[in-house]
């Protein structure tokens, strides 16, 4: 505590002497431990909720993957021409002159 200014040092020494030195009340430690326990409970709950959300998100993701895979299995991989060919009667195309008759 040496600021090289005796006036300032004296002022600070007087100030420290003038300040009350509070001591903890009897309830300090019980109250501190109850705050620690409350915080622990809060963190435990928060962790529980967080893991529940993670689990739910994982389950939803899994369901979506299964659903997408199922949908993909049902889809046929045909080209536009094949689909058009299947939908039109070949005699119509022959009449239109688009296709030659094969016999």
């Amino acid at each position, binding site marked *: *505590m040496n*600021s090289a*200014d005796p*006036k*300032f*040092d004296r*002022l*600070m020494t*007087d*100030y*420290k*002497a*003038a*300040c*009350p*030195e*509070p*001591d*903890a*009340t009897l309830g*300090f*430690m019980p*109250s*501190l431990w109850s*705050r*620690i326990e409350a*915080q622990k409970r809060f963190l435990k709950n928060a962790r529980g909720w967080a893991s529940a959300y993670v689990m739910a998100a994982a389950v939803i993701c899994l369901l979506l993957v299964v659903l997408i895979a199922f949908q993909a299995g049902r889809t046929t991989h045909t080209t536009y021409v094949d689909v058009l060919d299947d939908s039109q009667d070949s005699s119509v195309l022959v009449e239109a002159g688009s296709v030659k008759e094969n016999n």
Partner: protein
Amino acid sequence: MLVDPEVVDRARKGDAVAFDELVKAYRKRILGTISRLIGRPEDVEDVGQEVFLRLYYSMEQLRTPDMFEPWLYRLTVNAAYDYHRKNKRRKESRMSDLSEAQVTLADADASGEATREAQRKSTIREFVHGLLSEISEEDRVLLLLKEVEGLSLKELEKVYGANENALKVRLFRARQRVLKAYAKGEEPDRIPS
């Protein structure tokens, strides 16, 4: 250090008995520091508990027991900053209240040596608070830690994680500003001896 490094080490590993021992060893010192940093006796214990609560949940981050005291002071300083931030509005509305000296005078119905001494102390406190209000919150805390709490520059370096020279400059400027305000004020008349 007020406790054996082994106690700090045990507390760091989650030993509740060791932590209890730590709190009991340091609470008086920390409450005294908080009292000077926040200046409101009625809130000292609450802020003190906040400091030890934060200590409990941050003990694992402490690398070595010799860093314990700077760490505790760091938490104390942070809690004081948080307190001031939260109470800024309340503090402003308090300006219209009676000053501390006025309250003491009003309380002191009975005359006597003890009352006069209490008045003198109260006047000194109020006078120094007035001088310290000339500097920023951060510099006020730094100056109090150095000049009143008696922390060395090396310790402050650990508390603030800042360069010693930078702290020296900040302290010098803060001190100059306080001294300027001191010289301007009518101090000799205000502090009864």
